């Protein structure tokens, strides 16, 4: 077996980290908007799954990745509005509503998929033209020769599809919106003390609805990434719990954009490493059993949660429906 620590292996691991982390980052930012406004969002998973299905379906039918992306966002925003209608307008339980959306998405995507395409819940495989294909960033070839930064730029930063860069851009934009704009200030306030916001004459419902819609849009992009960028079709249950992992990453990051992204990258990195460590002889320990490698992300999660991140303090008003005082 070849050596583990060649430059190429390290670079390709980072490369894979970005690919795997993309849906996590998008969903974590989605969850951040929603939860900062005081709405618990465990429906990230369901929204992403529905969006993935919408994207797979529309790309197969129309052949256009842009239509598919748009459709995915619309479907996901609509589900966000359902969530909002249940727990903002009618002050329902946010966890129950989120769970309902997840169950609905899990069942409905398969039923519709079987009804429309008769492929056991999958959508037809897509041609390259109907997907987001890898982009070569400018100067990748020219800079390749520069030691250190050159190969890194060429193999890690360049060569991803558009949505990976969208996810990376979503983090500073989220940070800017949440911390530097008037909307962000109000958003944070409504998650901490909605009564104060209400007293100031600002509509709590309106703010929370915008937050769940932004969350919906971001989940929509994540779903489209799964179905028409990373893969070439929707497959049943293709989100495989990534929505929950994103939620965990966001809590890891204490409801802040940059730490949340780092947590997502860590999960992605562990996944990429576990794929690459399989069947490879490590120095000293020899070949590691596949079970142990695959348990690694979970073990590290427990260790990190127990020891390193300290107390995670949620927005104060999270999970509490707001009743306007009359």
């Amino acid at each position, binding site marked *: 077996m070849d050596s583990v620590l060649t430059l190429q292996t390290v670079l390709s691991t980072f490369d894979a980290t970005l690919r795997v982390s993309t849906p996590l980052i998008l969903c974590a930012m989605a969850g951040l908007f929603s939860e900062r406004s005081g709405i618990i969002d465990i429906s990230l998973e369901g929204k992403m799954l529905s969006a993935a299905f919408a994207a797979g379906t529309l790309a197969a039918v129309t052949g256009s990745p842009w239509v598919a992306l748009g459709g995915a966002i619309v479907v996901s925003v609509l589900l966000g509005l359902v969530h909002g209608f249940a727990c903002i307008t009618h002050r329902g339980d946010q966890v129950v509503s989120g769970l309902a959306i997840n169950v609905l998405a899990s069942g409905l995507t398969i039923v519709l998929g079987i009804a429309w395409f008769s492929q056991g819940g999958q959508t037809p*495989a897509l041609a390259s033209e109907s997907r987001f294909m890898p982009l070569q960033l400018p100067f990748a070839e020219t800079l390749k020769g520069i030691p250190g930064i050159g190969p890194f730029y060429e193999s890690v930063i360049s060569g991803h599809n558009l949505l990976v860069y969208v996810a990376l851009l979503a983090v500073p934009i989220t940070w800017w919106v949440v911390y530097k704009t008037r909307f962000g200030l109000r958003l944070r306030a409504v998650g901490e003390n909605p009564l104060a916001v209400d007293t100031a004459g600002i509509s709590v419902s309106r703010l929370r609805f915008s937050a769940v819609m932004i969350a919906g849009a971001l989940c929509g992009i994540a779903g489209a990434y*799964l179905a028409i960028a990373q*893969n070439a079709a929707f497959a049943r249950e293709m989100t495989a719990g990534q929505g929950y992992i994103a939620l965990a990453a966001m809590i890891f990051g204490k409801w802040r954009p940059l730490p949340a992204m780092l947590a997502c990258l860590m999960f992605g990195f562990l996944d990429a490493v576990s*794929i690459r460590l399989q069947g490879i002889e490590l120095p000293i320990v020899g070949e590691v059993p596949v079970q142990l490698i695959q348990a690694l992300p979970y073990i590290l999660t427990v260790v990190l949660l127990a020891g390193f991140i300290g107390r995670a303090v949620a927005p104060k008003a999270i999970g509490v429906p707001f009743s306007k005082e009359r």
Partner: protein
Amino acid sequence: MNFLPKSTFKTILLGAAASALLVGTASAADVQPAVVFDMGGKFDKSFNQGVYDGVEKFKSETGIEYREFEVTNEAQREQALRRMAQRGADPVLGIGFAQAPALEKVAKEFPDTRFAIIDMVVDLPNVRSIVFKEHEGSFLVGALAALASESGKVGFVGGMDIPLIRRFACGYEQGAKHINADAEVVQNMTGTTPAAWNDPGRGGELTKSQFERGVDVVYAAAGGTGVGVYQAAKDAGKLAIGVDSNQNYMHPGTMLTSMLKRVDVAAYNVFMDSKNDAFTPGIQVLGLAEEGVGWALDEHNESLVTGEMKATVEEVSAKIKSGEIKVHDYTSDNTCDY
């Protein structure tokens, strides 16, 4: 299936009763076959779909409807098999190694019902167990992979890490090394739970990591996960090998071949034998000599397989049939030393 709305079910029953009255003399020998697909689903384009093709062929030839159920979680296997038997289905066909414990239990409860299982042995007087010599078929595609590879490195992506899949991997490795003793075989398993049969995203990632290590032909024995493997191969312009059903059509031009496991024939025979009162319990082992396994050559991959390659593989195939080449079976001693 089990969960049809009651009204629909009543309609079906009424319909069935009405047609029985009309026909009047529905013969007692008519069988009511049932099949319980496993977690990949009947359209996994692979193992389960092979069975589906077989039972559909039975239906179109005989006009006999069969009952079916697609298992979506582990607890459903036993329920589904028992419900089928309770409703008078006979024979009941269970698909996949994972149904063995459930099938064993249910088969004991219904000693007069005929059962069959593919890919595992259940030793009961009313059960037919059909197993395949996957190592022989994998040996052939391994040989073909080594012939097609330019880098001398070939890859394998398995589904769930179980001895059955290791048998595929081991046969593949032997085949590749038979052609090129220096060939390197990079092996990955998708996971250790049944979810590993249906994770195309992870399959694609594993494949990309193998390509980065120099692999240029990859063989997937991973159920629905294989879809991601073949897609990754297509995206990278490398070659992939399908499994169980003929999957060459999925990406013509990058599918080198498919390792055929004639589960369709096995499933068809279970139903047909039951109909003709020729059902025999016991173990059936289907290898190259019985045409139970093989490799696929059709219009989708003929441009990839040169005459020379074809001749070599056929020669190897003949040698395995004659016993000149002995392919080591991983499950015989749980090692891949040969």
